[in-house]
């Protein structure tokens, strides 16, 4: 990956030139700071660059949406974050937002309108599917032809917002063999990270949730576990390491699958 080739304009840069992108890419905290998630961010930008999409990021003007604070019960901190972000977004007259994080997606799409921030918000799998439909991006299976891929539904994309097909359609476009876990779509099992669990020790129990979910994934004998959320990605990657399968099974975001298929 040659990151120096990434073109990542910021809203501030474009604004100073009197320009406005078609879509704002909301990177999110994980996508900005987490080493694993940064790879997803870069893969998505590579796709955007190749498809010559007019986009920008907020860069240092972006701040946490407040999702983990809200789910932890701190409505005050959440709203501080939300209202600050809304001021920035509205200042740039943002209309459309794409994000690689279902938690950011859910909060921006569903909870910001009530606080004065109304935008068209899409998850990157929806965005990519649309690029494909509009012919702005082509996909050839090649690399993933016939590979067994199982998709782990992120709760905040699936049950929370009813989006099950966009990521699956993209996997099928890679000519891969999509195999479903016994709990999928509406019945998908959480990876264990949601509701601010990512940031705390789990309560006492028999097992960690991500191990349970990893076991379900392993039952499908996959070559790749596909995810659509940086937190799910971390949890499933940890699960695969726990099962000592990291040599044979990869955990990859849909954006990474596509960037890889395109040799980006």
């Amino acid at each position, binding site marked *: 990956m040659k990151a120096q080739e990434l073109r990542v304009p910021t809203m501030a840069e474009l604004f100073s030139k009197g320009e406005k992108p078609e879509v704002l890419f909301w990177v999110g905290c994980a*996508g900005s*700071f987490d080493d694993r998630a940064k790879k997803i*961010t870069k893969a998505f930008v590579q796709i955007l660059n190749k498809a010559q999409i007019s986009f920008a990021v907020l860069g240092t003007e972006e701040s946490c949406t407040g999702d983990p604070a809200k789910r932890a019960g701190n409505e005050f901190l959440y*709203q*501080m974050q939300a209202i600050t972000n809304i001021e920035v977004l509205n200042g740039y007259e943002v209309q459309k937002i794409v994000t690689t994080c279902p938690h950011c997606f*859910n909060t921006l799409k569903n909870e910001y309108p009530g606080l004065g921030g109304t935008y068209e918000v899409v998850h990157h799998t929806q965005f990519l599917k649309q690029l494909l439909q509009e012919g702005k991006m082509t996909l050839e299976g090649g690399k993933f032809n016939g590979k067994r891929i199982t998709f782990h539904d992120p709760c905040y994309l699936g049950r929370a917002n009813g989006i099950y097909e966009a990521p699956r359609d993209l996997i099928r476009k890679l000519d891969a063999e999509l195999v479903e876990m016994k709990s999928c779509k509406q019945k998908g099992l959480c990876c264990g990270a949601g509701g601010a669990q990512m940031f705390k020790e789990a309560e006492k129990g028999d097992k960690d949730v991500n191990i349970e979910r990893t076991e379900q994934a392993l039952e499908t004998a996959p070559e790749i576990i596909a995810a659509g959320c940086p937190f799910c990605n971390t949890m499933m990657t940890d699960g695969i390491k726990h099962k000592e399968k990291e040599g044979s099974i990869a955990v990859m975001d849909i954006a990474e699958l596509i960037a890889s298929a395109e040799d980006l």
Partner: protein
Amino acid sequence: MGYLSNIVFVLLLAFGIGYFIRNVKRLIRNIRLGQDVDVSDNVALRWKNMAKIALGQTKMVVRPVAGILHIIVYLGFIIINIEVLEIIIDGIFGTHRILGFLGGFYDFLIASFEILALLVIVAVVAFWMRRNIIRLQRFVKPEMKGWPKTDGNVILYIELVLMVLFLTMNAADYQLQQIGVDDYSRAGTFPVSQFILPVFDGMTAESLIFIERAAWWLHIAGILFFLNYLYYSKHLHILLAFPNTYYGKLSPKGQFKNLDSVTQEVKLMLDPSADPFSEPVDDTGDPGKFGASDVADLNWIQLMNAYTCTECGRCTDECPANKTGKKLSPRKIMMDTRDRLEEVGKNVEKNKGQFVPDGKQLLDDYITREELWACTTCNACVQACPVSIDPLSIIMDMRQYLVMEQSAAPSDLNNMMGNLENNGAPWPFNQMDRLNWAKEG
């Protein structure tokens, strides 16, 4: 004798319905202890949801075995209860099978009641076996010990007894019709109870009349008893499933409500022109308590949810925390809420409409913090509920109380929130480094 039986019947009916009305009033009073919430929107969609989910049982059949068995019992009870109409008319006026004049149609009705009654018996036996022989995991969880377990079985016993009484009554009637006893003129066809007839071989008309009358009285008395049992039982769902699905959440499951009282504060704080030392312009609005520590802090829909829960345990069965051995069980959240609400309701009743603090609350005395913090907010419980109950909203309200009123978050979460406040990210990274990824190799 004369009108004695008519009088006894009317008294029984009046008592049964009267006591039921009293219980409904209690139920409404308790639910009204909850906070107000505006649900006057989307009337058409709400009716549609009720028709689909409650009437149409669409979410029951997600689990096909339980779903189909349940539809049998549900249809059986609704349809067989048409017969109650005739029983009431007969009871009041001292007639016998008053609707018999419908002829062929009556035959058809009675025949379908009988077939349904048999199917209900089969389904009820299957349900009983699932609870007591197969012991499906969700029926033997810790919160299902004691009364909840007994309650589940009692409901099945009552249903079984009612169906057996119904068929016995019909069988004796049919035998009497065949012997040609006065008052038992030919009415109805009996595709199921005809097989009971051999039991009555050689019995006198008197004994048969006794059996028929006894079954008839016990059947109607049993129905009235069942009606009044509802308030004390998880079986209340047969009534509340309808309003509960009507008032179910319509927004995306991931959307949690924003607290308006907080919004005002935050906007004021972030307003650069606000003078921090000025007198508050509008001091009338007490922001109130944040979140919920007791049932009266919840809204009335959440309280109705608690009464609607029939403890089927589909929520708990899907809960990732429960699946992996944590204490959290969404079903228990609902059961605890109902138990506490009952306790508060009795307190209010005893103290002439006023709640007198009893040193207890929903938090800690019923629902522990450990349960609340184990939730991943994944919505699996909400998705699983066949009658649109939202256990997650109660968990979130209680977390809000813990964090905003008591600053009692787990220390890991306090670290996360500290980072968020200082750096705008849940980890200790500098906001100025947010775009570094774009320059990294």
